[in-house]
């Protein structure tokens, strides 16, 4: 190779090195189901007219004889659907408006080669199947042309329309198009839409063109790739989302846009004018979420994240996750003021931090939310609570007149009231409160206990390894177990067999403390390893560990000073322990502590009597 060639090669290498990649991507998904959708929204009728082209590749080893479509909006067709029967026509405190139902109908379905397919609705019409003229062989790709008409309900279960504070229409358009199920193990993994259940879908690319009146501002999954004004008062906006499992969008004539660049990610906050005061807080928590989750698990690989603000009348659309788009919740218990009347209310931050965590644990690691809801909600809630501990140290997430509660503590308080629920189970097998405990509270508490047993660093290694292994895939509980046990090198039966699969509980307590002996007891079947701190009168300290494999542990120190006190779980991190109040015992009654508490108790009673007596 002569000098000119070498120089040219060097220049080429330099160019390649210096030019940044268009997008920093950790890995690329295997595109299974890609959608190209042209949709028109008529705000007056709240009807969507859509035409979609689905490109589906059979990545399994079996032939696929038929297709299964989710038609989620049909869950809101009447009060007789499975969703409505299970939920009592109420979803998380919001009531279904029978005067404004939702629905979806496939008006035409044919293959790319023009063959008509016959659709059969299953059960309540939220699922439909269609026989293929010929089975789709492994590795083959099928193109489908689908025409559909969808009607949006008044906002219910995170989708629909609402009227904002200015009297204008707001649309949150989620679960709105005919969507294929997931072909797994020789069958379609697709269920009718159940009340507690969320979603499960394959990865693919989405190109979505939305035609609607020009005055509407639109936030959508992915990035904008085109805008055309038609000259008749309407416009078409096109968005492209790569390697995602879903596509959602929102529209309002009153959206204002705030943005912040977080590394290579453009974070957008589309807010309504009445919520202008929340902009700084929203952008701050968006940035902190992206940075921390990215550092813990793996970088957010998409170029944009859009956060949608919802109007007060459309709060049923708030707090929901879609790939690269989430909905927030600007109004907390106290409205928009996070600090009023002795409260510090961080509902806005909580919702955004939680939904952004779903980008990792649902959007990228695409769990089956219907069959194993604890995975996506539990991982997400654990991540958000962990983030809150970083942002608001010392348990100062929520405050009321000086009393403070951290996110984890809040979840634990829910858990201890209903602890004997297995985390593992299909969403609709749980009553709603049990579902909330299993999927959110207990799962977050259990994962934080796992962290306390493994230690921070090892836990993060488990989680980040799991994320890297299953990014753009559909892992299960068993996959998580394999990764966790392999990375930690530990048998984690107590976690998976005890907490995940059964309702086993535990309460550790110090039963007695004598001069040279202390007895610790375990109540319940769960065996979580723990540490015990023993402090002696001389001030010396011994830290013991116990695998909790028996009903009790007797600690004896015949040659030592008298014991001053014994404390189980001195760091207070063993959150599955049902009662932390009995975790420590001193050798003697603590008179000053008794008096300190009694004095405050007396004062509270005096104050109560004064107030009730008109003073």
């Amino acid at each position, binding site marked *: 190779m002569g000098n000119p060639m070498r120089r040219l090669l060097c220049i080429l290498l330099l160019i390649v090195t210096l030019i940044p990649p268009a997008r920093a991507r950790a890995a690329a998904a295997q595109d299974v189901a890609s959608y190209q959708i042209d949709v028109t929204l008529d705000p007056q009728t709240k009807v969507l007219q859509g035409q979609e082209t689905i490109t589906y590749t059979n990545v399994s080893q079996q032939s696929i004889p038929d297709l299964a479509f989710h038609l989620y909006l049909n869950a809101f067709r009447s009060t007789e659907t499975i969703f409505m029967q299970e939920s009592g026509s109420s979803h998380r405190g919001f009531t279904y408006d029978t005067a404004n139902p939702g629905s979806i109908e496939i008006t035409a379905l044919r293959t790319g080669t023009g063959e008509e397919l016959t659709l059969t609705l299953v059960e309540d019409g939220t699922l439909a199947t269609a026989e293929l003229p010929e089975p789709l062989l492994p590795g083959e790709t099928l193109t489908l042309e689908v025409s559909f008409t969808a009607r949006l309900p008044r906002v219910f279960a995170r989708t629909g329309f609402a009227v904002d504070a200015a009297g204008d229409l707001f649309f949150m358009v989620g679960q709105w198009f005919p969507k294929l199920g997931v072909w797994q193990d020789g069958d379609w993994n697709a269920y009718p839409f159940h009340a507690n259940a969320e979603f499960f879908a394959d990865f693919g690319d989405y190109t979505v063109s939305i035609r609607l009146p020009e005055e509407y501002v639109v936030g959508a999954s992915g990035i904008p790739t085109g805008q055309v004004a038609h000259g008749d008062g309407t416009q078409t906006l096109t968005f492209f989302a790569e390697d995602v499992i879903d596509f959602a969008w929102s529209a309002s004539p009153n959206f204002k846009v705030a943005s912040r660049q977080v590394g290579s990610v453009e974070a957008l906050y589309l807010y309504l004018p009445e919520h202008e005061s929340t902009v700084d807080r929203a952008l701050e928590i968006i940035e902190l979420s992206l940075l921390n989750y990215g550092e813990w698990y793996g970088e957010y690989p998409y170029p944009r994240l859009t956060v949608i603000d919802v109007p007060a009348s459309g709060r049923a659309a708030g707090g929901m996750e879609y790939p690269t788009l989430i909905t927030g919740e600007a109004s907390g218990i106290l409205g928009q003021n996070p600090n009023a009347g002795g409260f510090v209310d961080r509902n806005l931050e909580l919702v955004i931090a939680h939904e952004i965590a779903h980008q990792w644990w649902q959007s990228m690691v695409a769990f089956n939310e219907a069959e194993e809801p604890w995975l996506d909600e539990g991982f997400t809630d654990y991540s958000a609570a962990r983030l809150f501990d970083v942002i608001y140290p010392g348990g100062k997430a929520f405050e009321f007149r000086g009393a403070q509660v951290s996110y984890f503590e809040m979840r634990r308080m829910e858990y201890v009231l209903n602890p004997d629920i297995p985390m593992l189970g299909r969403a609709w097998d749980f009553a709603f409160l049990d579902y909330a405990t299993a999927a959110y509270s207990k799962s977050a508490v259990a994962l934080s206990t796992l962290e306390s047993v493994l230690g921070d660093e090892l836990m993060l290694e488990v989680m980040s390894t799991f994320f890297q292994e299953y990014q753009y895939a559909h892992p299960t509980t068993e996959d998580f177990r394999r990764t966790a046990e392999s990375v930690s090198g530990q048998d984690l039966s107590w976690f998976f067999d005890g907490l995940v699969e059964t309702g086993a509980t535990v309460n550790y307590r110090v039963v007695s403390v004598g001069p040279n002996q202390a007895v610790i007891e375990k109540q319940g079947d769960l065996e979580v390893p723990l540490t015990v701190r023993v402090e002696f009168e001389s001030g010396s300290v011994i830290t013991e560990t116990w695998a909790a494999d028996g009903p009790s542990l007797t600690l004896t120190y015949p040659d030592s000073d008298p014991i001053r006190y014994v404390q189980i779980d001195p760091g207070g991190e063993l959150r599955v322990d049902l009662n932390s109040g009995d975790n420590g015992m001193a050798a003697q009654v603590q008179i000053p502590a008794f008096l300190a508490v009694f004095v405050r108790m007396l004062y509270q*009673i005096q104050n109560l009597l004064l107030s009730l007596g008109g003073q």
Partner: protein
Amino acid sequence: MASSTPPLRQMLAGWLARWQLIIILYAANLGLALLLALVPAFGLLQMGRLTALNDAAQAIRIPLIWDLLSPLLQVDPQGETMGIQGAGTIGLSFVLIGLAAPFLALLMASFLAGGVYRAFARSSTAFSLGGFLKDSLAWFFPALAVYLLIGLAAVVLLIPSLVLVPVLMGISRLLGWLVIALVVVLFSLVLLVGELALAAMTAANSRSLGVGFSGAFRCLFKRPLSVLAVVAIALAAAALVQVIFRLLLPLAPGDQWLLVLLLTQLFVIGRVAARLLRNAGETALVTSA
């Protein structure tokens, strides 16, 4: 009984002359509170060796209280009790205190009212504890009737607002807050009329509610500015006590029980003194009207 002394001066003079009332009312409050605190104190003593008590002494943490009390709400799957000895006693006694306190406070306020207002009405004479108790007993039932009326008004105002305010807040927060303000003003007015009636009755040495309420309304309509001035001073005194206490309390670490005891008791005395200033003002208003 009419006085030529301006009400504000009479209010202050009466309040200063009857300093003994501060001690009596404080002692009554402390005595009743101690009685109510006995049972939970026993529960607390049973927990005396738990290190959680040390944490509670530093600061009351909601999760700790939750842990102590939540076993009472659980049906334990293992059939074992996960509760802590003493915690149940405390939890149950707090529930009982919560239920009994309104009645006990009503009875105490009704008993003391006659003695207090009579003492202010006769502030030029020497104070005697026997006379105070005799007057308290004599006006117990009329005072009880007045306080029951005030309580009834509170219920009538409060219950509809509990339903109405959340609905209004959903429509407009401003509207919701306006209704809350209206309820507070209305209740304050009812309380003022009731207390003026008690002052008028005792000043006229009568046990007739008619005499009391006619005196109260006469006072309100004849000297509205004086009434406003007395209310403003009483409110300012109560607010001052609150502000001083809120500034001082954080200076006392939770485990410094002696310092906390001193501060909290001074605050209670301050509240009692502020209330007596209001009562002295009400007596001055009805006697000068």
